[in-house]
């Protein structure tokens, strides 16, 4: 998990730099937002000069799943003070959730263990982003080396790895088709949020 974070963080730094963002903006995204897929999505939307409410709305929907994760972790954190719970919430990611779920299910009780893990991921994510910014600044002429495709390839890979069941495939294909069609019709920035909000309806009726 630490290896994946390192590589993805560095890839993000490279891709964001190649997309023309300033190093300070890229570092701020990892430090303030701290959500891998959202940060890649933001770079793509910035490149398409999306208005900031569109960017924020896309990130909001992309991260809405954290409500489910935090809800399922809540009982484990109930013994912490409210202030500490709210601090721990900042470090909740797909990775730390997966780790925490496994750990608590095996009977683990130490919240310090979870917090150490989650904060380490945060530090590693920020450090690898900064390393990626340095690498990205050193590579010239991205198009010639196909590097402009790296962000798209990253999204394709994230989708493939996230597929768990047949409805996921249907949702992904529908989202590609709807967003692609809207982009061809000239609505490329709202294409993402519209297709992203409509396609999951295919999963609503899925049998258990």
């Amino acid at each position, binding site marked *: 998990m630490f290896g994946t974070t390192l590589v993805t963080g560095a890839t993000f730094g490279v891709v964001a730099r190649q997309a023309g963002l300033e190093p300070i903006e890229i570092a701020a995204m990892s430090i303030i937002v701290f959500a891998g897929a959202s940060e890649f999505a933001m770079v793509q939307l910035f490149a398409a000069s999306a208005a900031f409410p569109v960017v924020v709305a896309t990130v909001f929907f992309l991260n809405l*799943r954290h409500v489910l994760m935090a809800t399922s972790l809540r009982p484990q954190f109930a013994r912490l003070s409210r202030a500490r719970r709210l601090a721990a919430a900042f470090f909740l990611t797909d990775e730390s959730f997966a780790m925490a779920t496994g750990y608590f299910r095996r009977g683990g009780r130490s919240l310090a263990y979870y917090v150490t893990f989650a904060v380490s991921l945060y530090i590693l994510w920020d450090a690898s982003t900064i390393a990626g910014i340095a690498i990205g600044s050193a590579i010239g002429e991205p198009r010639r080396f196909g590097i402009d495709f790296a962000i798209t390839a990253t999204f394709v890979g994230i989708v493939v790895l996230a597929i768990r069941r047949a409805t996921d495939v249907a949702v992904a294909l529908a989202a590609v088709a709807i967003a692609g069609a809207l982009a061809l019709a000239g609505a490329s920035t709202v*294409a993402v949020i519209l297709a992203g909000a409509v396609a999951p309806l295919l999963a609503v009726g899925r049998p258990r």
Partner: protein
Amino acid sequence: MIWAAIIGSGLVTYMVRALPFAVTLPVRLPAPASRYLEALPVAIIAALVGPAVLAPGGTLTHGPEPLAALLVIGLVAWRRSLLIGVIGGVAAVAFLRAIS
């Protein structure tokens, strides 16, 4: 604009992470709502792929993107590695551009 987007995105991300820790929500969401929420990330990321692969310049592509995307799907499904997929896809785009 970029800074407004970064700070706004940071706020909404923290909000969805912290909300269930701050207030008591109904213990269980209705099943269809959870299924919708679970499918959201896949849909949004796939929605980012659609325009980038089918219409990278705003019009239907005749370029290497669709082929390279298929290669990435194959590589990632086979090796379960994001990095291998990205390297393969980038190399394919560079190669196809060089020969076209």
